[in-house]
């Protein structure tokens, strides 16, 4: 028997959650399909003028990504809570924050990363330019992990509550507004010929902030919810 290090634990949790997600593929696919559908509904709602679609593309994609990630957040801790695994995680001789970080990472790989990969295809529906698409992808790459991390706080706070899903969105969506603003702002900066660096670096700063604080806050929220 060998003792494991912090990093081993992180890898273990990520691998575990990924394997579980693979064996429950339907859930992952549902989130993706939701994302594609919401984005595709917009042109049907506002009309097919390309000029208008091009203008709203970034906003639509970002808002859809935000809603799609809310959809999958409810499951982030609840399955582990119901079958007792979460108790065991809290008893792990490593910091709970590390485990939480692992779960956040896995959540992003399952529900954030696919959205990023799908975004360029959907962007074409909105006639986005190649450069705008590139910036959109970089923005989503920086921004979707923040959604997973901030969302995890909400998921931990609403653990085991009735109507947790709706409540979760109510708590988390306002906190995600800065991400939305900088993400869409970057794409708009491209079309208006401004520098995108400031937007993206602000997103990067938010990502670092979230990385530093959210695992700890989520761990505290889990301890509160487990009482």
């Amino acid at each position: 028997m060998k003792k494991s290090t912090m990093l081993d634990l992180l890898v273990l949790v990520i691998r575990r959650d990924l394997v579980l997600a693979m064996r429950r593929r339907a859930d992952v696919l549902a989130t993706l399909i939701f994302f594609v559908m919401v984005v595709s509904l917009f042109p049907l709602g506002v009309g097919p003028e390309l000029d208008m679609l091009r203008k709203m593309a970034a906003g639509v994609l970002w808002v859809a990504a935000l809603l799609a990630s809310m959809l999958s957040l409810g499951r982030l801790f609840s399955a582990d809570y119901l079958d007792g695994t979460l108790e065991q995680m809290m008893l792990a001789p490593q910091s709970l924050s590390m485990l939480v970080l692992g779960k956040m990472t896995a959540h992003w790989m399952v529900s954030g990363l696919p959205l990023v990969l799908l975004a360029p295809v959907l962007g074409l529906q909105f006639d986005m330019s190649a450069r705008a698409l590139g910036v959109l992808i970089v923005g989503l790459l920086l921004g979707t992990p923040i959604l997973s991390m901030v969302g995890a706080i909400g998921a931990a706070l609403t653990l085991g509550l009735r109507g947790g899903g709706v409540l979760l969105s109510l708590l988390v969506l306002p906190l995600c507004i800065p991400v939305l603003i900088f993400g869409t702002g970057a794409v708009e900066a491209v079309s208006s010929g401004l520098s995108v660096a400031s937007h993206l670096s602000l997103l990067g700063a938010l990502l670092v902030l979230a990385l530093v604080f959210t695992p700890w806050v989520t761990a505290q929220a889990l301890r509160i919810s487990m009482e």
Partner: protein
Amino acid sequence: MLEVSNLACSRGEHRLFSGLSFNLHLGQIMQVQGVNGSGKTSLLRTLCGFLMPDEGDIVWRGESIRELDEDYYAEMLYLGHLNAIKDELSALENLRISAGLSGIKLEEKEAIAALRRMGLRGREKLPTKVLSQGQRRRVALARLLVSDAKLWILDEPLTALDVGAVALIQELIAEHLAQQGMVIFTTHQPLHVAGMEMRTLSLS
């Protein structure tokens, strides 16, 4: 080793117990008794640090468990009502992951050996979905075999187990105690450990 002094606990507005004190030393076993709702599970969960006691202190090796935190968790093992088992994973994967969570890297061979001793030969790689209630409990209990924790906290370990499995658990507990381990447990079924004095704690 484990000293509990003047512990008080409540759920909501209802006071479960107060002024509870006891010591547990190496090689000792203690059963927590009480009617339904007397706070057995709450006591065990307080000992795990899930619940914050209203008053009192829980001290492990001379230090409060609040301060020790991870060092305490490295030396204890908790088995609750819930099995902490994933339906989608096989028995083997479940065991290796739960051992990993408690800080132990478990080789496949060791895990298989543990599962076989729990009477799950030939079922190691089946998804736990297809196992019976008792077999799942055995998967969860296999953690006892691969853990090096000093203190076992077992909440109703015998639920859903058949006679053979109960005998096996008694044997495991006896081994653990012989190696200077400590056990605190609750049960509604009789549990006998040969050659050991069983202490009891009654909650009323």
